[in-house]
């Protein structure tokens, strides 16, 4: 059994330096983790290229599905074909950035718990959540994200919209918020493994859940719309950034709602993480 006080001493640097120095220290750690990931990735170059291909294939599949749908209709709710293409592109962009930065780490959390390797993470003199969240960087994700952004650009061209600098900045900021939502929800699901020990199929659950972000929000009505906006904000993460880009927000409140939901998701995941750590009781040894 690990003592509670260990968590606290692990979370805070014993010398309690200034905030500036702490940031610098974490940046240094993060750079080292990046370098580490890069070196490991270069060891499996063929695998790296294969994964890029798989991601592109899945992306093409989603776009193909959309083309099939629009063979039979002119709009889904209020969304036209190229708007949905942009939505799929933006959703892919966000998802791939999340995948590059956090997905593997979240997926491995249950492994850390069930092998008891979490002990070592808790004993290291850095914030444990920071460490388990960012240990690995999946560099392929950045390449795939670029393909998503390219599709967003092409769709904008087809739609004849040329967003202003302010719109693009807002799009970028909302994408960051969306990544935080992805991360918070996935981290939340992963912490459940502290109770169940094994969380098989977690990644599949993630893909299934986030597939909703690619469907136009106008398709959902009543109960479903409320659930996927206010409980699991899938209908905000990709559609609000796209609406900003094509300038068709119903009201500026949509942006505020998305930011509020981002904050809430993150806070809930923090709460869950604290509960989970209290529950942790190592394995074997």
């Amino acid at each position, binding site marked *: 059994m690990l003592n509670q006080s260990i968590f606290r001493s692990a979370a805070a640097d014993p010398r309690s330096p200034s905030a500036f120095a702490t940031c610098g220290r974490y940046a240094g750690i993060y750079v080292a983790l990046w370098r580490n990931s890069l070196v490991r990735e270069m060891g499996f170059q063929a695998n790296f290229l294969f*994964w890029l291909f798989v991601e592109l*294939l899945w992306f093409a599949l989603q776009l193909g*599905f959309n083309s099939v749908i629009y063979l*039979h209709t002119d709009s889904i709710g209020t969304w036209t074909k190229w708007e949905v293409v942009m939505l799929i592109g933006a959703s892919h962009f966000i998802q791939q950035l999340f995948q590059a930065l956090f997905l593997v780490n979240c997926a491995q959390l249950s492994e850390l718990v069930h092998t008891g390797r979490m002990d070592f993470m808790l004993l290291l003199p850095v914030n444990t959540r920071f460490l388990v969240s960012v240990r690995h960087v999946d560099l392929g994700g950045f390449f795939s994200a670029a393909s998503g952004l390219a599709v967003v650009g092409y769709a904008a061209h087809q739609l004849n919209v040329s967003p202003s600098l302010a719109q693009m900045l807002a799009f970028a900021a909302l994408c960051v918020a969306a990544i935080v939502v992805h991360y918070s929800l996935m981290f939340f699901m992963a912490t459940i493994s502290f109770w169940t020990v094994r969380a*098989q199929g977690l990644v*599949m659950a993630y893909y*299934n859940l986030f*597939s909703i972000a690619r469907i136009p929000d106008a*398709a959902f009505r009543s109960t479903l719309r409320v659930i996927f906006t206010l409980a699991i904000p899938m209908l905000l993460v990709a559609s609000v950034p796209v609406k900003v880009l094509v300038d068709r927000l119903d009201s500026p409140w949509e942006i505020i709602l998305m930011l509020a939901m981002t904050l809430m998701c993150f806070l809930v995941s923090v709460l869950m993480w604290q509960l989970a750590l209290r529950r942790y009781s190592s394995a074997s040894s």
Partner: protein
Amino acid sequence: MSIYWQILNIGIQNTLVYRVNFLARALFNLVPLVAFIAMWRAIYAGKTGDVSGYSLTAMISYYLLVTIVEAMTSVTEDDWQIAADIKDGHLSQFLTRPIDYLHYRFCLFCSGRSVYTVAAAAPVALFVFMQREHLVAPPSGTAFGCFLLSLALSAVLQFLLSYLVAMLAFWVLEISTFAFILLAFERLASGQMFPLDILPQWLSQAVMWTPFPYAVYFPVSVYMGKTTGIALAQGLGIQLFWVVATYALARLVWSRGLKSYTVVGG
């Protein structure tokens, strides 16, 4: 035979441990279907007439049936486990025992499917119940009988396809990329995401030359009475052909694979 009966039994007991996991998985698998149905409702609301002969009710029926077929037949972890057996050298124990590995895995697949079907029954039934006015009955008893037959063949076919991909573990370190490529083709070409006959004709005809439609689309179309008479008999024949062909290929790849199989350590 009794050996395989025992394996089936043990398989069921082992997978029962993961029943909560299965329940969660079944719930999450419903999410994209909810989304698809919502999307089609919005599409039908904005237009008049059918989509390639599908009314809204028929379209929703199609997705409900896909959910049921998928719960009963799709492969979940088997390919990963087989690949792990090969890579970690667990295969060796089967080579010295009077058990056929393919049959052994098939028994485990069946036990996994039966536990999954039971675990998924409640959420799937609830989901279908909520849309019950859209679930059409099969047009005849014969259609339903043929549906059950093609359902069984579809399960065997999906198992064999995954088994084949897992066999790649004899030659490559990591099969996950291949497994995801197979999954992508299954998603698109099996009819999981949309009924294949809404595709342009040349494309749907081309897809019918692959084994994938016989995993999901074909059984569902039999149930819905879209495939009848000679086309039905022909379809069942082709489905059987794919099962036999993938089985033969699985045997061939297995014997090739064993030649390059090496166990490190003991």
